[in-house]
């Protein structure tokens, strides 16, 4: 078995040029499916409108000012208009424009959703990687922490935490930055830590036993190098996917809290709007239904995008 191998036979270019085989145009151009496209358009449109309405109101004259009342025949009237040209989503209890309020509310909703997801992702990610990679005592303490978090009903935890943070803010002057938005963000972030930590830990556990990690160790790679170069790139897909799905859930959770009266006072978030208008749903269905619709479509979009990302990230790890 000492015949010399001719390297050239192995380096020959692949006989099939993928560019020339018949791949459907949609896949070749990486055009996402219709639902995903709609989700992206929805989220991008909503974000752009929200940013413009808040910071460049002149650019979007069709969005009324937050405090502007929509008058009927020169008079302020409760639920004066149904959906129509005058007020696209109709007007609300104090004659406000529902459409404008939906857009202003999106700012708080999205901020809280994204903020809470980031908190959960970062804290949960660190906790999960540490537990999964170091095992032993680190893992035990981390797991006890996440198990405790998971064992408390999240709604109860949120109610207690927010009220408690409110008290603390009043007592300590250095907590002045802790506005209601921050309180909700931190609370929801804490609730999101446990599921993130669990998923990241499970992923880390399987990855650390893979041979490429052993190979890195046998090459003399340091621990931090293994974590950042070998583990993290393989964790990112799962984390992004879970983050998007989690974002949808957290936005719905924020609406739930607002519905229970623990919302941001100004601007009203969608949950708060639903809470205010729901008693009058027979009189003015639009004041409840449109915020609900906004909530529904936004959560749906995040979920659809999350699924799509999961699919995109799934490289074929043949024979693994």
């Amino acid at each position, binding site marked *: *078995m*000492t*015949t*010399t*191998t001719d*390297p*050239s*036979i*192995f*380096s020959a*270019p692949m006989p099939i040029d993928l560019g020339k085989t018949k791949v459907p145009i949609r896949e070749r151009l990486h055009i996402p499916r219709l639902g995903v496209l709609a989700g992206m358009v929805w989220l991008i449109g909503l974000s752009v409108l929200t940013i413009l309405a808040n910071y460049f109101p002149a650019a979007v004259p069709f969005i009324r000012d937050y405090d502007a009342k929509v008058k009927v025949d020169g008079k302020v009237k409760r639920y004066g208009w149904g959906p129509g040209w005058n007020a696209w989503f109709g007007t609300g209890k104090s004659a406000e424009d529902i459409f404008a309020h939906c857009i202003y509310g999106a700012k708080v909703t999205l901020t809280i959703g994204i903020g809470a997801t980031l908190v959960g992702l970062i804290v949960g990610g660190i906790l999960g990687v540490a537990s999964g990679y170091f095992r032993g005592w680190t893992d035990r303490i981390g797991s006890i922490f996440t198990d405790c978090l998971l064992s408390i009903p999240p709604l109860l935890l949120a109610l207690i935490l927010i009220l408690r943070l409110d008290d603390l803010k009043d007592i300590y002057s250095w907590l002045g930055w802790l506005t209601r938005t921050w309180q909700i963000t931190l609370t929801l972030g804490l609730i999101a830590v446990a599921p993130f930590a669990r998923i990241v830990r499970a992923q880390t556990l399987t990855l650390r036993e*893979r*041979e*490429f990690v*052993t*190979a*890195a*160790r*046998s*090459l*003399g*790679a*340091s621990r931090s*190098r293994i974590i950042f*170069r*070998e583990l993290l*790139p*393989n964790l990112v897909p799962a984390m992004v996917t879970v983050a998007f799905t989690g974002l949808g859930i957290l936005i719905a959770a924020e609406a739930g809290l607002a519905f229970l009266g623990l919302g941001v006072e100004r601007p009203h978030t969608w949950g708060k709007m639903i809470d205010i208008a729901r008693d009058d749903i027979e009189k003015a269905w639009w004041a409840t239904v449109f915020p609900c619709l906004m909530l529904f479509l936004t959560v749906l979009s995040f979920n659809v995008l999350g699924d799509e990302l999961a699919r995109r990230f799934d*490289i*074929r*790890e*043949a*024979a*693994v």
Partner: protein
Amino acid sequence: MAGTGKAHLRDDSNVLLRVEDLVVEFPVGRTGLKVNAVSGISLDVLRGETLGLVGESGCGKSTTGRAIMQLRKPEGGSVVFENKELTSMSHGDMREARTRMQMIFQDPISSLNPRRKVRDIVMEPLAIWKRGNSAERNEKVDALLSEVGIDPERAAESQPHQFSGGQCQRISIARSLVLDPTLIICDEPVSALDVSVQAQVLNLLEDLKAKHGLTLIFIAHDLAVVKNISDRIAVMYLGKLCEVAPSDVLYETPAHHYTAVLLNSIPVPDPEVAITKVAIEGEPPSPVLPPAGCRFNPRCPAADDRCRSEEPQLREVGPAHFVACHHPLLGGDAPVAVRTS
């Protein structure tokens, strides 16, 4: 058979790696029991030699390889590599020492990070040890990739899953050579590949061994694969050594009953040849509770009371031919008929 002893160790200044009484145990939950994966193995490898380590699944071959690399700290024994004791080394010294010894793994695809470009994977060792500037690194990596038959340009833009199993194993080999190691431990490097690719990878290993002056430890369960590549072969059974002999001696005159049965199990690709019925019964005993005496005794056709109580030591039965058995097969005896019950 399957015993301890160090009679086979050579007293030679040319010894690159010397393993003595290596013990690796894994706890079984909280039962207090343990899996005796490797129970007192002694080996030595000379510079430029290829040592084949064979045995059936679960006999501790791979664990031995990993324990030599200190990827799993052995519970006992010593590993001396280039005149330095590895088992008592500090974490930092051990990292340094690992650059001199490298490992190639069984699963070629799993041993490469699926999310990195192949070229970066091969360059990783240089990056870890900050060797050379980027031009020198590139040059070295490209040269090695071409040497193992991978197109460097394609490697620069492809991820491991875009290569076949055989190609991935070549990439692994290139990565293991980047730091110019002296010892390479090949942990079943071809058992995940199909036969035609196996031959290519084995030839490549032989060529590279000659070109780079490597010493190999070749772990495999396939005797036909080990036969050609090894100078010396050590046969393992249930965490112990059975027999150590030069490759051709082992294949012609196996002295251990287990080796004889193992050799007999190599299929002959000729339908005309009558199958001689030398098979053994049963399965290897659990390494949690290994049998007393010779570990092979429950399945050995020649086992007697002595085998069940006294552990055989490795002893010389021919030139450079060592066996751990109380009743070795000598002078080309036909293997004793199989005990059937």
